[in-house]
């Protein structure tokens, strides 16, 4: 079913849907990293005009499903309390790459290890995904190379037009929500077929172990400052640490909170173990570790590349390190080794 919803019809739907929260890219005026710039991030949508169509978010929708800080348990002294379970439906507006990114997280939080992560699953089950059509990809996107430019598992897809949205409804929940609003229309969803960033991803079968120790990584040791922005902004980076906070002045008191907080493999301390052992001291090896997770070993484990080509890591690196170019460099090495005959 395809419909045209005028702005006010759209806003009426937002306000009449009870038990539903609408989430998408919003603009926080003046909250950007630099003065007089805005922070674009995921947040609550209260009206059509809240949705930001023309900029990429700094952090992805990941923060909604894997909060930056998330309470796991509260210890009250005698009992272990789990945080209250919420039941609001979460309608999430996001781009094709970001829908793929959520599937990448699913692989880890729902399917890896002995059991699904209950906190993640609790939210994931409540999400209804709305695809925001990318008329023109952003400057740094490389979704086409990653095969994430097209997508099919969404409940509805929207195109922004001057005075409202065109919506292509694919599932029953959205059909029932929208029944009665808007006017029937016809349009064909467009997916980007070309990106500004030209990226060539090598095939894992061709990625030899020599690449792990190749000197190409040394350059990154000199450039990367381990700020972690590439990890935090990445919609598929899923790493976290767990901390306990004690609420008793008495050190024996068991009143405490256990929480998890995002972590990242570029950050100092990520591999530190008691007694001083640590791995990947050099930032170049962190770059290699991240790169291989994104385009090699995740794929070995789950069959798809972890990176979805959203380009955020390239947008945010203060040292202007391009991950897209890093993939190309690896690809060049793979091609070279293929064309050099064995000695």
């Amino acid at each position, binding site marked *: 079913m395809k419909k045209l919803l005028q702005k006010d019809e759209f806003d009426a739907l937002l306000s009449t849907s009870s038990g539903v929260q609408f989430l998408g890219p919003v603009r*926080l*005026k*003046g*909250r*950007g*990293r*630099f*003065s*007089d710039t805005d*922070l674009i*991030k995921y947040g609550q949508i209260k009206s059509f005009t809240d949705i930001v169509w023309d900029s990429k978010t*700094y*952090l992805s929708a990941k*923060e909604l499903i894997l*909060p*930056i*800080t998330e309470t796991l348990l509260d210890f009250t002294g005698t009992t272990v309390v789990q945080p209250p379970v919420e039941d609001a439906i979460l309608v999430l507006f996001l781009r094709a790459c970001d829908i793929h990114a959520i599937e990448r997280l699913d692989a880890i939080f729902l399917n890896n290890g002995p059991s699904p992560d209950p906190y993640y699953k609790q939210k994931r089950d409540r999400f209804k995904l709305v695809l925001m059509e990318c008329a023109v990809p952003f400057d740094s996107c490389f979704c086409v190379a990653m095969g994430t430019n097209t997508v099919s598992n969404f409940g509805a897809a929207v195109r922004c037009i001057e005075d409202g949205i065109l919506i292509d409804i694919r599932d029953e929940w959205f059909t029932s929500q929208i029944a009665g609003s808007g006017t029937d229309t016809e349009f064909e969803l467009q997916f980007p077929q070309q990106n500004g960033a030209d990226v060539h991803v090598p095939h894992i079968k061709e990625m030899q172990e020599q690449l792990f120790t190749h000197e190409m990584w040394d350059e990154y040791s000199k450039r990367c400052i381990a*700020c*972690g*922005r590439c*990890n*935090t*902004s990445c919609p598929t980076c899923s790493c976290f640490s767990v*901390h306990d*906070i004690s609420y008793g002045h008495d050190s024996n008191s068991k009143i405490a909170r256990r929480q998890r*907080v*995002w*972590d*990242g493999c570029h*950050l100092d301390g990520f591999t530190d173990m008691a007694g001083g052992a640590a791995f990947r001291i050099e930032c170049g090896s962190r770059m290699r570790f991240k790169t291989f997770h994104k385009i090699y070993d995740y794929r070995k484990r789950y069959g798809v590349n972890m990176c979805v080509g959203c380009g955020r890591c390239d947008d945010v690196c203060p040292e202007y390190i391009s991950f897209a170019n890093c993939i190309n460099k690896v690809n060049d090495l793979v091609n070279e080794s293929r064309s050099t005959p064995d000695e």
Partner: protein
Amino acid sequence: MIRDINRKKTVKNAWRITKNRALTCLRIRVPGGHLEARHLELMKKVAEIYGNGTVHLTTRQGFEIPGIPFEKMAEINNLITDYIAFTGQHLSTEVISSREGYPAAGTRNISACIGNRVCPFANFDTTKMALEIEKTVYPNDFHVKIAVTGCPNDCIKAHMQDIGVIGQALPEYETQSCIGCEACVKNCRKKVTGALSMVDFKVERDPRRCIGCGECVLVCPTQAWTRNPQKFFRLVVMGRTGKKNPRLAAPFAEWVTAKVVLGIMENLYPYIQQYIDKSLVKEHVGYIVDRTGYQVFRDWLLRGITLNPEARIAPTMQWSGYMYGYDTDAWDTKSTIPGSL
């Protein structure tokens, strides 16, 4: 050639007395130090047609175009009218339509660092603020130097001005968004004042130590730190160079809004009017403050101003600095410095 020139009037009109009796030098204001490039053609034209083909860039970010015969002043004043009208849009139509050049030169060009049009550290648009200040204080014959700088790094040297305006960002912290990477804490400790510390994996900011540089916002990988969109300023006052008692400006106000800044600028002039030593050719405002004392100065500057709640005003003031005329007889010389040739 007969050359009967009203020196005082000429100087007030932004023309310079030079060491060559036949030649003068035109001073062009560039409020906020930022200019549309097309205006450079005017500078070029005046320099090449009337001057000696060179242009000097002043410390206050103006142009000085030297080597101009005094008799060309009227012609050039007419020529630069459009420029004056453009960079001084607040000037009265009388001033502009007279086509007689700059109406005053005492209060100097308001200089500014490049600000947030370019610099990532800047907490506001310095040029825009400089223009606002220009509107408030110019034209005026009192000799006052004002400069505007984007952050406490003070690239414009606001600490050498009568009034220096320094941009402050009020950092706001979203606990939930912090990953505890300590980047902000380490950076503030190393580069700034050590206002931040880690408590239970999260960050605490000591507002007494925070100078509002905004560095924490710049380094945070999750934007747990953001700027309060309200712009705040620190004012440092009565810094100066000069032949008597050079000194750095000292903090007068912190966390004041633009409105308060402009109000204080405006109040400076009646204070000078009231206390200036009229027997002198010109008295620099800093020396007036030395005579009246800080409390009088402070009362005059805050007169009629409603301070924003965040504002803090210095109760007393100690300037650093030194007096020339100290005894150098006991100083080392060539013969007493070991190893000197």
